[in-house]
């Protein structure tokens, strides 16, 4: 009788130990995976290197009159495809832009909202990124600063004219615009723990473009 009780309690202990180990392992894995994503995201912004600037400067200035009727994007990108780079001079950071704003794209960089036009096109092109990785320092960027997007179509320079902080359910940000616009959004407040209730939005208009031939 005692034997059986002992054995069952030993079984129970073994089971508990195994279960506890599993929990520890799972916790470690979960924690490590998320930490990895977080740090990977934080390390995504590349600094705008000297060599790159030089290479850009070396490009011949495109002819003014060449402002073509041509279609900027003969083929539309697929979800998950990298479509270009966002350079924020104020932060000296270059971020990759992926088409789509699902978790898979946002994990890799800045997401381009698929229901909006592509950068450079007339109308509103919407980019979003995680507030705690790629756009950690977006709060430092404000009115008058530039945002430069480079895609297969060329280089587009936008100037921020409005900074908005809106509710997460706001429906007035992703809207059509009568001019080529770039809207960059992230969650707000930046250091909120949990799911942030607001969105930090930069609205910029196209000031110049250098089209690739």
């Amino acid at each position, binding site marked *: 009788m005692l034997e059986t009780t002992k054995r069952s309690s030993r079984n129970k202990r073994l089971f508990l*130990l195994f279960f506890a180990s599993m929990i520890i392992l799972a916790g470690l894995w979960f924690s490590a995976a*998320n930490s990895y994503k977080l740090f990977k995201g934080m390390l995504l912004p590349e600094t705008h290197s000297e060599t790159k600037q030089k290479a850009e400067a070396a490009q011949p200035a495109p002819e003014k009159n060449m402002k073509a009727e041509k279609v900027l994007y003969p083929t539309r990108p697929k979800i998950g495809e990298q479509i270009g780079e966002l350079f924020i001079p104020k932060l000296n950071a270059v971020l990759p832009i992926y088409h789509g704003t699902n978790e898979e794209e946002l994990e890799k960089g800045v997401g381009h909202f698929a229901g909006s*036009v592509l950068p450079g096109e007339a109308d509103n092109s919407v980019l979003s990124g*995680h*507030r*705690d990785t790629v756009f950690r320092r977006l709060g430092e960027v404000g009115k008058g600063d530039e945002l430069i997007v480079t895609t297969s179509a060329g280089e587009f320079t936008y100037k921020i004219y409005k900074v908005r902080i809106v509710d997460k359910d706001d429906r007035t940000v*992703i809207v*059509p615009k*009568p*001019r080529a616009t770039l809207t960059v959004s992230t969650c707000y407040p930046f250091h909120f723990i949990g799911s942030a209730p607001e969105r930090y939005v930069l609205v910029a208009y196209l000031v110049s473009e250098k089209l690739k031939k």
Partner: protein
Amino acid sequence: MKKWGFILLAFILWIGVMPKPSSAAQQASFEKELNQYLEEVSKQRGFKVTREHIEFSLAQYEEKIENFDSVEELRDFLGEVIQKDLSNLTEIYDEFNLNEASLRQLLQEHGEDLDEYVFVENLYDAVMLYIERDPNFDKNLQDYLAKISSIRGFPVTIDHINRSLSLYERKLEDFKTVKSLERFLGEVIKKDLSNLSYIYDEYDLNEKELRQLLQEHGKKLEDYVFLDDLEEDVITFLSEEWDAGVEDELLYDLLTVFEQEYGLTKEEIERLKNHLRSIEEHLMKEETIIALLDLADRMMAFEGFDEATELTKSQIEELISIFKDFQRIFKIKVTFSLVKDGSEKELSLFDLFNLKELINAKLKINIYSESGEFLADLLITGEIVDSDTLHRTGQTIRHGAQEAKSVKQEKNVSQKIEKKLKAVKDNEHKTVKGAKLPKTDSGYGMNAMVGLFIVLAGFLIFRQARKV
């Protein structure tokens, strides 16, 4: 007599740049005028309008301040300012069935405020984009067609409308209300053609000539329903003629002035014309045009030739160098001599520009072709120069130049309008309205923390289990 030097240069310059007008350098006074303009706009708008506002407004049409040669041009382009009491928005209200409250509401739905708008046109285009299509559109369209049919004098169909819209790369679907379609298409040609007088005046045509011009391009007056479409084609057809070569008629007009005022004989005019025609191919060459444009820019730097300003020595040298380049391009040689009391004294260009006035003397201008063949000579007497004649000549030339310029400007304007249209043109790809913003909390940090808590919980269970 610096004026004269300028006029002669301008004459040559004018012929040279006529087919392809150049852009003038931005003037130094531009900034000052811009500030004045901003002040004026601020006063009308009721708040401080800055350079940024202007840049922002221009960006809607893919334009920049730098692309404008003068503040006047900028003002024309930007158009009417929204008055601070909003009194001039009635057209927009009417066209889109709005009032102030619903307009503000509409803008708010698109994350905007009326104060972000300075110019009526910008607001108009935004509203045009934002507003929902009128549910009674089709019915109203039928009424509109009936109305314009009776004005035009023949049945105007949807096909006519579509054809007109296609000229501006527009579709019927781009319009939200029939009133805005009506505004876009503009005035209808009346059946008795009584409202064509504007076109007759502007392009120096009469009905017969207009019909002929259209016929030459395989069109007829009855193909047109709207005045704007007709004018658009008239401009195109006329500018085709302009581009066709060194413009004959204007050249002739100009030379006639010289004939009347300076005693040029018909033979001389013929020779000049023939000379220019013989080098037409050379003149139409890309390099020549570029060289001319370059010279034109250098000329423009002198800012108008009708002001008798004192020139510095280096400016005179620059003028002479420009003058020489013009001679080279036009393959002519020009010599000047002063005829006084029956004797001729050759003048250098430098002397010419320094010549103060002609008293009891005649200035003789000899024009030769490059091969030394005599083309013409002009004789200018002191009396002529000092009388109104010079002024008149200057005016004629200036008028001619302005005519050329106004056609150029019209061309520019229509290009800009086209651009305006393009900027708001319906794109195949559009941004959706009112989508929810993506969730941009990665939660990675939180999750990592949660993970650690789980580990901790695991440890607690582990310890507990060992105790058991």
